[in-house]
């Protein structure tokens, strides 16, 4: 039984059984002392009502029996990630996490390390007893070379299992932590220092100055199979050779860093850009049309499809736009499918397009055979077209790149195709809706609007000159 500190509950009622005034820890175990020290420090700083305590998995799972504050029992190894989560939504509250050497040193190391690197706002107490206590004394990352545990019956072989993990030294390489110290609870003198470090870490939390880390060397007499006093003595001597005590860093006098500010917006401002007054209407008389746009990535295939889609939206049609996505976007071929209908659209992908626009050879070869009878294939005339086209399909070579070049916008081949489609009557929308959608698609580069309009008109003229109306 430990002396009551007001940071702890009067009675440990969450604990099973009758001994509700004693902790569940074994005689001589460091956890009991650490619990008392944290409780005292919390009381001295008057933090209990504001704090949230995140407990680990291991012997200290049951720390929610003791501390007089709100509690979260985290998954194994995840106390740091859980503390990160709650610290982000309760930025003004002190958050305290407590982890052992299996929890923090092994399974959850990356979560703790990344939290430290972000300088997340919580105090992290790391209890290092050089083994896994609760599961029966197995090796931990912190186990000493040659140390016998239940999974290193011949002693820890550093060649096969690595070296003792020095977490303070690793965290010391990071920029963000405010406070890093290693202490021990092996004797009275060390306990006094441990208390100071613990209280400092909590004070940093109370002042919301950032990430504070205290590693506490803590004997586990039960698994060392020794009597508590002898265990503590031997432990101190051996452990401190590998894990020297001392303060690594204390930047708590500096003001807390402040993040860069971002512009504030309302939900409406953020999600807006929507258009008023457009309602999608059922129109059974409108025949559904399926457009497939294809070419090289970078030819503006996706935006060509988007302009057609936006124009159709303006007219109150049901519209879906489906891209090929992922690595295909870069370098290789790109395609997108646009369906315009007078009722809800079923499959957003297209097996048999009414209209295929092919801006390169591979796309023409890949998709030409899928075009529906009565459909149209519009393809860049500079590419080889000696492939067989399906019967009943009208295949029209179109000099998109020369029209774009002649009008001084070599990259506007897609706009040329748009103009050709409009000229051929393949787009059942008002021309103003098409040109408005084209202008809108270029709104980030307004200097391109006028030249693209020229390309659009030139393409239409090519169609009327050649009498290619469908």
């Amino acid at each position, binding site marked *: 039984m430990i002396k009551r500190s007001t940071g702890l509950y009067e009675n440990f009622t969450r604990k099973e059984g009758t001994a509700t005034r004693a902790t569940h820890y074994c005689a001589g175990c460091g956890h009991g002392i650490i619990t008392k020290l944290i409780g005292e420090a919390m009381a001295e700083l008057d933090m209990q009502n504001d704090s949230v305590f995140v407990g680990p998995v291991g012997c200290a799972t049951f720390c929610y029996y003791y501390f007089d504050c709100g509690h979260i029992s985290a998954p194994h190894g995840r106390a740091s990630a859980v503390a990160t989560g709650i610290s982000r939504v309760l930025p003004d509250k002190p958050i305290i996490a407590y982890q052992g050497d299996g929890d923090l040193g092994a399974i959850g190391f990356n979560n703790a390390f990344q939290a430290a690197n972000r300088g997340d706002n919580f105090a992290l107490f790391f209890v290092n007893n050089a083994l896994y206590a609760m599961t029966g004394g197995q090796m931990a990352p912190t186990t000493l070379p040659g140390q016998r545990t239940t999974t290193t019956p011949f002693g820890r072989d550093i060649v096969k299992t690595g070296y003792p993990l020095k977490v303070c030294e690793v965290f010391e390489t990071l920029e963000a932590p405010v406070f890093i110290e290693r202490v021990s609870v092996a004797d009275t003198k060390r306990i006094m220092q441990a208390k100071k470090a613990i209280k400092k870490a909590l004070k940093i939390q109370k002042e919301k100055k950032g990430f504070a880390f205290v590693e506490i060397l803590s004997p586990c007499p039960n698994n060392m199979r020794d009597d508590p006093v002898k265990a503590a003595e031997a432990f101190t001597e051996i452990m401190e050779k590998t894990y020297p005590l001392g303060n690594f860093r204390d930047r708590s006098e500096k003001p807390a860093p402040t993040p860069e500010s971002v512009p504030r917006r309302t939900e409406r401002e953020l999600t807006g850009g929507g258009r008023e007054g457009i309602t999608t209407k059922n129109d059974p008389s409108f025949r559904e049309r399926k457009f497939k746009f294809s070419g090289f990535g970078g030819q503006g295939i996706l935006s060509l499809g988007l302009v057609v889609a936006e124009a159709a939206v303006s007219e109150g049609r049901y519209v879906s736009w489906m891209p090929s996505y992922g690595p295909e976007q870069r370098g290789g071929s790109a395609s997108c499918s646009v369906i315009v209908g007078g009722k809800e659209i079923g499959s957003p992908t297209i*097996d048999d397009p009414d209209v295929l626009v092919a801006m390169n050879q591979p796309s023409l070869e890949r998709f030409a055979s899928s075009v529906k009878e009565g459909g149209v294939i519009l393809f860049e005339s500079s590419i080889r077209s000696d492939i067989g086209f399906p019967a009943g399909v009208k295949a029209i070579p179109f000099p998109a790149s020369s029209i774009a070049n002649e009008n001084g916008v070599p990259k506007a081949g897609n706009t040329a195709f748009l103009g050709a489609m409009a000229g051929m009557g393949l787009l059942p929308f008002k021309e103003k809706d098409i040109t408005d959608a084209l202008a809108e698609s270029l709104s980030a580069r307004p200097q391109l609007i006028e030249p693209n309009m020229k390309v659009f008109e030139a393409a239409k003229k090519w169609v009327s000159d050649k009498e290619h109306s469908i």
Partner: protein
Amino acid sequence: MRKFVRGNEAVMIGAVYAGVDAYFGYPITPASEIAHTASEYLPCLGKEFLQAECETGSANMMFGAASAGKKVMSASSGPGMSLMQEGLSYLAGAQLPAVVVDIMRAGPGLGNIWPEQGDYNQAVKGGGHGNYKNIVLAPASVQEMCDLTILAFELSFKYRNPAIILADGVLGQMMESIVIPEKVSDLPETDDWSVKGNLNTKNNLICSIYMDVEGQERHNILLNKKYEEMEREAKSESYLTDDADIILTGYGTSARIARSAVDILREKGIKAGLFRPITLSPFPTEKLNACSSGKKIIVTEMSNGQYRDDVILHLENKESVTLVNRMGGNLPKVSALVEAAEKATEGKA
């Protein structure tokens, strides 16, 4: 207000109108645009966006923030969803609300980034360890990507249970026009179970540990009672099923494909209808049986029969089920469904 948006963006439009407080996530194709949108929207609203170190981290950060009674979410795809299963089991065990969006891609393993529906069992049957169920919603349009995200937050808080939006690469990447919600939902915050670092919540404990076997069993029975209550939230859509001789069924993108097939079959004089679950957990068992009793059923999915197995599980009439499926990133063809339906109804048309 109408806007032509990508499915992944619509998820975040729904989320901000649901009043989301925090997003924790790791990018993955084809779900990344959800994180992109969240990283813009949330800081501008004074909410929290954090790119986590891994999906294990995302799920546990959600666990922490959800403990404070906040509306939390994440999004991912297959490999990332697998990493989140630990956190989902703990969220369910500790009865915490959270919304996770799974934009399914092909698997198993690394698979590829193209659309599939192979995470059905993982989402619907639990996925992590122990006796639990997720709420699982299956959008089939960009509008539903928005609307079901809002519903997911509502149900997740109503039942204090994780909710999964089970969509796929098609739904995440495609664009359709949506009606943007009118106002931000005002789900009240509660002090009943949350831990907020104040006097009201000081005695609360968020945990999933019950050391005595009787206590653990009581907890499991309580959770199961909750899952039974959740049955009343089952939702589905029936399209032209009333006079149908044959029922096509699928969810999400598969349902869209099946809808096209139904229209073609109707034009051909075959009385086909579509049954589309909107909630996969709870499963709309009653509605399925009501519309399919005595009829042939064609199941379509972008997976290896996972959804078909559930349809059979929930059907009273188990004999008449045919599967038309594709995998690996391929989609079932409308024509394949039409053919299967024609074959099944030979002599009836």
